[in-house]
């Protein structure tokens, strides 16, 4: 490790490229911690947003009309406003009102908590629509065939509609989740110490904006690349012969 630190020391001193995260222990630890925060924030956001999407599409198909309105309002609210505005709105407007009404001091949720909730709801709204498109793509005749074979409605959903709908939704969902991972950078505005936030802290101290911009760029390229590699493998594993992509 010492040689790596030495090399970057030399690079900063002799060549003027100051990658302080590789030789300054404080900056290095903070940056790693920032990447780790991005990873777990993204992970939980992805899980929650898929869950919200599934609940959304389930309620959307309910025969009880107010529930359908509710889902429509949810999708409209989160799809029609920018995620940064949502973060500000919930953190600076909703939280103070709620916490003063409930008499909680220091905020209802932490910065991280609001980022997780708001970004999951944001991507969940898109997932709702994506899953709907998947369900609507399942041919009615297929469901009727299952019904003719004696399947109950729940069995039809579990064994026919859902597996096919999920595969149809998969590419759009993957794109949406990639977007979600990139959108976690907006959590920076409400002071969640993720990658971009930490990078900003470092370049304010070290004046190495150019170097840190490059590092941040590479970090996201790698993180999203890994996520996509995982999703592609999963998609292949889910392949139904004669349905969707052939390979």
């Amino acid at each position: 490790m010492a040689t790596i630190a030495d090399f970057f020391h030399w690079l900063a001193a002799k060549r003027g490229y100051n990658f302080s995260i590789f030789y300054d222990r404080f900056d290095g630890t903070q940056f790693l911690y920032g990447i780790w925060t991005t990873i777990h924030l993204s992970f939980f956001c992805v899980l929650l947003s898929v869950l919200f999407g599934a609940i959304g599409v389930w309620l959307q198909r309910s025969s009880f009309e107010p529930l359908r309105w509710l889902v429509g309002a949810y999708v409209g609210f989160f799809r029609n406003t920018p995620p940064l505005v949502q973060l500000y709105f919930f953190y600076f407007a909703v939280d103070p009102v709620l916490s003063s009404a409930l008499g909680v001091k220091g905020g209802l949720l932490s910065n991280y908590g609001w980022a997780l909730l708001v970004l999951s709801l944001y991507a969940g709204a898109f997932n709702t629509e994506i899953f709907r498109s998947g369900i609507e793509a399942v041919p009615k005749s297929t469901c009727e065939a299952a019904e003719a074979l004696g399947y109950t409605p729940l069995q039809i959903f579990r064994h026919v509609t859902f597996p096919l709908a999920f595969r149809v939704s998969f590419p759009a969902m993957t794109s949406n989740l990639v977007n979600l991972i990139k959108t976690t950078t907006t959590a920076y505005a409400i002071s969640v110490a993720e990658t971009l936030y930490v990078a900003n802290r470092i370049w304010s101290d070290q004046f190495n904006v150019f170097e840190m911009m490059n590092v941040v760029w590479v970090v996201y390229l790698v993180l999203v690349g890994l996520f996509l590699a995982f999703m592609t493998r999963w998609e292949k594993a889910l392949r139904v012969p004669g349905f969707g992509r052939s390979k």
Partner: protein
Amino acid sequence: MKNLRRGIVLSLGIPLLFASPANADTLASVLEKGKLVVGVKTDFVPWGMRDASGQIVGLEIDLIKDFARRIGEEAGKTIEVELVPVAASNRMEFLEQGRIDVLIATMADTPERRRLIGFVTPSYYSSGVSVFATEESGIDGWDSIEGKKLCGMQGAFYLREHGFGNGADVVTFKGVPEIENALFAGRCDGWLYDDSALVSRQVIEPEKWADYRIAAPVVSEVPWGIAVRKQDEAEPIAEAISEAVVDWHKSGMILELSQKWGIPETPWLIAMQEKCLAGDPVCAANQ
């Protein structure tokens, strides 16, 4: 095409037009015109601000008016002061382009700025970094911020040294309104910021900030200087200002003005008065 070319020639010529008056002896031309054109802040209470009637007033305006009075008395005529509002982002350009003769605008004297403009020494004020917190936050001194949550400004240069360095958990935001919101929502125990900005808040909104105080000794102090054009650095105008600043320190005028404008007296001002009276080199002109 012809118009475009003419436009380019004209736009290249404009900076030259503005730059030309800079070579003359600024003090002599001020005395001749009977007018001193000064760049001042109007958004930094109570150093430079607008009063209820829209007039520009403040501690810095009082200082520069006193300087005009001094050179006027010496020359035997009245020197009028024309105040030009400037912003932090354009103040040095106003000076370089010759639109103002002197700049007194809460500006820290830093080596980077010294490459572009001339700073008159000694400095007339000094600000640094401190923590703004209530009594009940338990913050008192830099040792006490360990483990505390401090709000701060994204991009500030002192977060690592004075925040993280002292073991605090620094939570940063993009702008002052967000910080104030977070602070009053109880998300931070204190606010790590420029002490003069903290002081000015208590002057403008005394009720809102009544419970807050400067809870740690001011550190990383940078002096505030009156600036002149780079080429005026060793000219009579700089010497005259320098003499005036020495006098302000010796006579305690800056301390008096601080009191007038509700700024608590700073240890730096008191030390400067002592040093100037004792003839300390810190108080010498043109360093």
